[in-house]
């Protein structure tokens, strides 16, 4: 098999192979990573998260179907999982297209480097498509490797033994590929149209907005759309517009059409999937071809320079001069850098989805209601994701080569830099979402409980800011980041398994305390000193810390273990000495 693949690759033109390899590494923008970045490992970690998700899906499918006693319950569970898996696949591919935004189209760098070389435009086009599709296929395979066999095995076998299994298997993988193609093609079509129709300067501006809008749409639709609970729900007239406008339901119907279990009244949804797929395939193909034929020259000729906005350039001070400098540098980096914007948008989309779900519940209620556990949990999660998310994004550098100016102009002690960074974190992440929480709390009563919760939330914001800045002796966006150093899959699962239950417990306790003034005072006596203690600890540590701009490798002492027993005696200068105990 390997030899066959190698022989196939050898048959491909050399220029295609070289370009494919280059574009594959650039699907994820390397400018945000350090030169020591291990891209295969980096991608491997993301694949690891998807594989774990697939395993969890598999266990969930098996357990839920096993516990379904009646045929109605069995049908409801199977429908739920079918739709959930399709929607998740579409979300993952959607997020991938957002992260790899513009990577399929020729950019200025490609045009300037490759245009003078004797390389056919179609070679570039195919290499770009092939590199994007490689990552996209990796996502499909890893996310479905377990669930993609268990679901057809359990449901397909029940519908017709081994042939049934094979039919369901084929239907499952074809639907996943079709749904992913639909998402990928839709984004390509929209991007292609904007590239073709707009002047390049305007396109560059609009592209950033479109990217964020896509991000919001993918996450918003995923979190806010209803799940299928039973066939009657699907038939209810008030739900028809949701099914008609949500592509994940179209592909759910397509899946059922392919496996032969589609109810006749849902045929129209499956037709929509086919029509949508055809439309998007034609649109993306046409826009790609037109872009490569017509816009390469346009890209070279038209400058990327976007003239500065005319009018007001007022920037109020955010405190001291250092706080103002770091605050605006942070804000501008977040707004103007694609990598940082997308990385933070991931956290913000979750925060927005939580806020929207609370707002939806509040709007649906006839009047102000009692403070609930759900409301407390939601607001905690909003502040948590906003603060922790921004502090994680702080670690991504924006331009390592430009950091010299910060080092040459570093005229104040590290504690001042730490203080400015902390204030930026609070101003940009905690304060806006605390205000949103305050706005949402207007629909809850009694007022004194709401006020107490908002006060607690403010203290929690401060605690989270200090917790996320422990050991952070850097200016935001200036330190080299070594991807692969943090094991994303472990962090992801630790977060899901530890933080959510802790937040639930905290919300339970707070709800209890809100109804018992003595406990509320006790909570205040715990949270207040904790917040102050963390702040004082960080400040004290910053006094003796040195700002750094390069991620420091871990010090490792390797011994051959030839002489035993032994002991290590540490010295202040960092060296170690080996001494025999005997």
């Amino acid at each position: 098999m390997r030899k066959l693949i190698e022989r196939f690759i050898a048959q491909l033109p050399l220029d295609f192979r070289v370009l494919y390899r280059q574009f594959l590494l650039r699907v994820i923008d390397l400018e945000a990573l350090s030169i020591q970045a291990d891209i295969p490992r980096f991608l491997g970690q993301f694949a690891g998260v998807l594989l774990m998700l697939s395993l969890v899906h598999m266990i969930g499918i098996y357990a839920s179907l096993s516990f379904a006693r009646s045929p109605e319950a069995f049908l409801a569970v199977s429908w739920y999982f079918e739709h959930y898996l399709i929607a998740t696949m579409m979300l993952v591919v959607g997020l991938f297209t957002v992260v790899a935004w513009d990577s399929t189209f020729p950019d200025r760098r490609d045009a300037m480097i490759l245009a003078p070389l004797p390389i056919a435009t179609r070679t570039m086009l195919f290499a770009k498509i092939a590199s994007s599709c490689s990552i996209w296929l990796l996502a499909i395979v890893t996310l479905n490797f377990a669930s993609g066999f268990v679901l057809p095995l359990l449901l397909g076998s029940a519908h017709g033994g081994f042939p049934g299994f094979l039919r369901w298997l084929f239907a499952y993988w074809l639907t996943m590929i079709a749904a992913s193609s639909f998402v990928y093609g839709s984004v390509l079509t929209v991007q292609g149209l904007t590239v073709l129709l707009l002047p390049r300067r305007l396109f560059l501006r609009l592209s950033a907005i479109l990217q964020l809008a896509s991000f919001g749409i993918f996450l918003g639709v995923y979190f806010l759309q209803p799940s299928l609970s039973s066939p009657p729900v699907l038939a209810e007239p008030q739900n028809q517009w949701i099914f008609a406008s949500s592509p994940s339901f179209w592909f759910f119907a397509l899946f059922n059409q392919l496996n032969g279990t589609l109810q006749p009244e849902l045929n129209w949804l499956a037709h929509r999937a086919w029509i949508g797929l055809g439309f998007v395939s034609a649109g993306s193909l046409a826009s790609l071809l037109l872009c490569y034929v017509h816009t390469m020259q346009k890209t070279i000729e038209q400058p990327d320079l976007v003239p500065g906005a005319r009018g007001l350039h007022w920037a109020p001070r955010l405190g001291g001069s250092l706080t103002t400098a770091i605050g605006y540098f942070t804000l501008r980096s977040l707004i103007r850098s694609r990598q940082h914007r997308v990385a933070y948008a991931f956290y913000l989309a979750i925060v927005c989805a939580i806020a929207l779900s609370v707002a939806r519940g509040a709007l649906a209620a006839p009047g102000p209601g009692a403070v609930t556990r759900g409301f407390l949990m939601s607001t905690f999660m909003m502040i948590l994701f906003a603060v922790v998310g921004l502090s994680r994004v702080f670690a991504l550098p924006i331009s390592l080569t430009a950091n010299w100016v910060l080092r040459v102009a570093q005229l104040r002690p590290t504690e001042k830099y730490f203080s400015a960074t902390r204030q930026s974190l609070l101003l940009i992440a905690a304060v806006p979402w605390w205000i949103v929480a305050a706005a949402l709390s207007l629909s809850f009563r009694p007022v004194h409980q709401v006020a107490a919760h908002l006060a607690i939330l403010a203290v929690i914001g401060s605690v989270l800011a200090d917790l996320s800045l422990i050991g952070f002796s850097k200016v935001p966006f200036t330190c080299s980041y070594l991807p692969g150093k943090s094991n994303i899959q472990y962090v992801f699962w630790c977060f899901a398994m530890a933080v959510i239950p802790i937040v639930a417990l905290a919300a339970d306790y707070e709800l209890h305390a809100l109804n018992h003034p003595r406990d509320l005072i006790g909570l205040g006596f715990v949270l207040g000193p904790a917040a102050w203690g963390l702040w004082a600890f960080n400040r004290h540590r910053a006094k003796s810390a040195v700002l750094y701009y390069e991620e420091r490798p871990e010090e490792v002492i390797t011994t051959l273990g030839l002489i035993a027993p032994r002991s290590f005696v540490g010295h202040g200068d960092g060296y170690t000495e080996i001494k025999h105990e005997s």
Partner: protein
Amino acid sequence: MNTECYIDMQKAMLELRNVSKHFSGIPAVDNASFIARAGEVTGYLGPNGSGKSTTIKMITGLIEMTYGQILFSGKPIHDDLIAYKRRMGYVPEEPYLYTHLSGAEYLTMVSQLRDLPPRQSAERIDGLLRLFSLYDDRHASISGYSKGMRQKVLLIAALLHNPDLILLDEPFSGLDVASALVLRSLIQELASRGKVVLFSSHELDTVERICSHIVILHRAKLVADDSIEHLRSLMQLSTLERIFAQLAVEQDSPAIARQMVELIDA
């Protein structure tokens, strides 16, 4: 006399004493010692890879030296690096800037990092942007600036706080003729006002016109440290180009060019 502009020429001088920098045991700068005095422009010359930029980075404090001592106004710079940085302006070899900021935003950020009074720094930024013909593009993103425009931003950032020591590493890179002429006069004007100016360049004509004292580095070692006049009479050569060629150029340039063409033709 404006006390801010005129500094004590006796005290303000930059001195390198046996400065060395080794990278993995290989010397990039080997035992360099020289003095750059206030009121004169010191030219720092050398072929590519001779250690000029490494020396300047050590003087800025960006990289640590392996051995030796750097003194400014008689004090080792590492004794109070922050106080030293307040008095130093630096234009690096490459115009590396935060390109997501506009020219005005970048300069404002630098002035804030240097804790300059807001009104005074705003006036200086506006004035220098106008004098460098960048005022109309001040709100455009630096990512769209040409190399010359970026160089101008670097020059403004280096002069904004009226430094006593000015380190210029290839400051003419990318500048148009008019801007280069302004910069040439500016360097001389700054030196005449008592600043210590250390100026590294490959443009020997410019160096010859504006520098009173030159230091030549070759293969990490100092091979000359004298006034141009004295070197001319000592070596009995008419131009700085000939002096430089004798001290730091080992190759037969026409022969190499001929070999290159033959290689392409073959």
